[in-house]
């Protein structure tokens, strides 16, 4: 199944979304490649969440083509959509855990829905290791979402999104509202999981640190379309006011410096290791 050309997991062509008079997207194009973490940025109200909702079939666009795994999401009946749905996981902005179910039961919901043949014991075991895998404390399983903090809720949301071992993960502002330590840990978690499980990640964020730390490419939403997609250095080379302001502003520079420092220390560690091996 390996291909030298990067395989396109999400393909959007000519997407147009509007609410009444207000046009959110107009002729928007976007590609997401297999195995990459694509960050989506844009000012408030540029339709980042609406874009995600149209990709996962919650928002009917006025026109355009949305293909996920090479299959069109639009004009499908429920039956056909189910086959695609079991291949992706979604973390909503507020985690959207089912409030009447415990964390473990939340994780089991997609498993029960799609694979009813798994035994209850195995389901419980799967829920348990997923809960640990996303870094939740071991006593979180039987708790209800209302008993969790915001960060824990997000982690539980990720655990549910990962329940089916999806190939594609949609994250809507995963680090919003987390403390810096929690946010950094969350970034690491997403990077880790995407590397180990070969996930493709579609990530909406405002967090510059997240962009620098984990995103392979960044798509910029402005003027009702994706105005640029590329690595951060590529974007910085562009002469667009909003992009320059976004990445060159005080916060952008701070994030860049922090990232450089982290890279340097990582490089140093690597050098020290290889040096030790040579000696």
């Amino acid at each position, binding site marked *: 199944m390996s291909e030298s050309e990067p395989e396109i997991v999400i393909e959007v062509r000519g997407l147009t979304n509007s609410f009444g008079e207000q046009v959110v997207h107009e002729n928007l194009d976007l590609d997401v490649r297999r195995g990459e973490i694509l960050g989506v940025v844009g000012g408030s109200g540029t339709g980042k969440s609406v874009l995600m909702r149209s990709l996962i079939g919650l928002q009917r666009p006025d026109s355009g083509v949305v293909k996920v795994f090479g299959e069109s999401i639009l004009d499908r009946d429920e039956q056909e959509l189910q086959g695609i749905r079991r291949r992706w996981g979604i973390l909503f902005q507020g985690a959207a855990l089912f*409030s009447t179910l415990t964390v473990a039961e939340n994780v089991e919901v997609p498993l029960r829905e799609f694979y009813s043949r798994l*035994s209850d*014991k*195995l389901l419980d075991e799967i829920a348990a290791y997923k809960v*640990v*895998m996303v870094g939740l404390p071991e006593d979180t*399983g*039987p708790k209800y979402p209302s008993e969790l903090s915001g960060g824990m809720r997000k982690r539980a949301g990720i655990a549910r999104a990962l329940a089916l*071992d999806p190939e594609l993960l949609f994250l809507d502002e995963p680090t919003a509202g987390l403390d810096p330590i929690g946010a950094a840990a969350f970034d690491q978690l997403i990077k880790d999981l995407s590397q*180990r499980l070969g996930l493709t990640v579609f990530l909406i964020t405002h967090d510059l640190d997240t962009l620098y730390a984990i995103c392979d490419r960044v798509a910029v939403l402005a003027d009702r379309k994706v105005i640029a997609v590329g690595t951060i250095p590529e974007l910085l080379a562009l002469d667009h006011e909003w992009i320059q302001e976004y990445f060159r502003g005080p916060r952008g520079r701070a994030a860049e410096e922090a990232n450089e420092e982290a890279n340097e220390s990582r490089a140093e560690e690597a050098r020290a290791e290889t040096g030790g091996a040579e000696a």
Partner: protein
Amino acid sequence: MSSVARYSETKDEGRRTLRFQGDLTLPRLGVLPTRLERLKGRGFLLDLSGVDRMDTIGAWVVHRTARDRDGEIIGANEDQLSLLRLVEQADKAVKVRPDAPSSLAQLLNQVGTATIMAGQTMVGLLGFFGSLLITTWRIMLHPRRLRINAIVQRIEVVGIHALGIVGLMSLLVGLVIAQQGAVQLRQFGAEVFTVNLIGRSSLKELGVLMTAIMVAGRSGSSFAAQLGSMKLAEEVDAMRTIGVSPMEALIFPRVLSTVLMMPLLGFYSGIVAIVGGGIFCWISLGIPPVTFIQRIREVVPVTDLWQLMVKAPVFGLIIGMAGCYQGMQVESNAEEVGMRTTTAVVQAIFLVIVLDAFFAVFFTSIGWL
């Protein structure tokens, strides 16, 4: 190509070997986990060299088999080893289900909780009534605090928007009472007394009671749901910290609107029910409207109207208070909003009917027959 996960058992150097084949992925697992669970014996070699693809759930199935049966995993490639390590790190004694107490303990627990809850609700409602009185007193001292806009808006929603449904309901109830009454009274040749039946029952009992039930269902429930959602969204907390008293801004206008609207709606309902009965009498019994109205004026004493006017505001107070009190009790999640809304309606209707019985006895004893 992808294929269903399966295994074959062979003997290698005296050890039983499970040779896995196909995709060890969730969609392809099929009955493999169940078959592995039923397997007897221990100390297997688990050979993964024939596996095409594996995900964490596949890795978990292999890992648990190895763990529970002293198995040894061989033939795994780099990626598979990494996945196995991942799930192994995540294999901790994790609680998944809450502790389930024994059924007797559970029963006792439920009874106890319900009793305490009932007690707390009584005390809570009393306290709520108290703070409502204090708020009313404060507003009377400083009339500028009266939120006219909020009250007018509530009055519109509680009163005016209810006119249609209350009217329709009352008309039908009036018709049914007249029709059923006529059938029974005909047996004694006392059909004319249908008018007495309609007049007396509509004005002092049915009208106000049916209206109370309708208002509890329409407005009491919406009070509870609105306030509950506002509490969940921390709007009530925000209000407090800004210095706005939720009692003044949210609860007083709501309760006042039901207190003011209930007598008007109750009276309206009684009149429409009489009209309904009148229509039936006209069409079916041949009593013309003029005669009907004359008879009504003769048989319905004015005390019936006073009874209605005394009862209705009290019912309104109960409905508004139950709705607001239950709404303000919402603490944790969306499910509670629904639960509290139901409780508000049930409580309001129950209290209204109990109080109605007391009123009946009271009015009889003071001679308002």
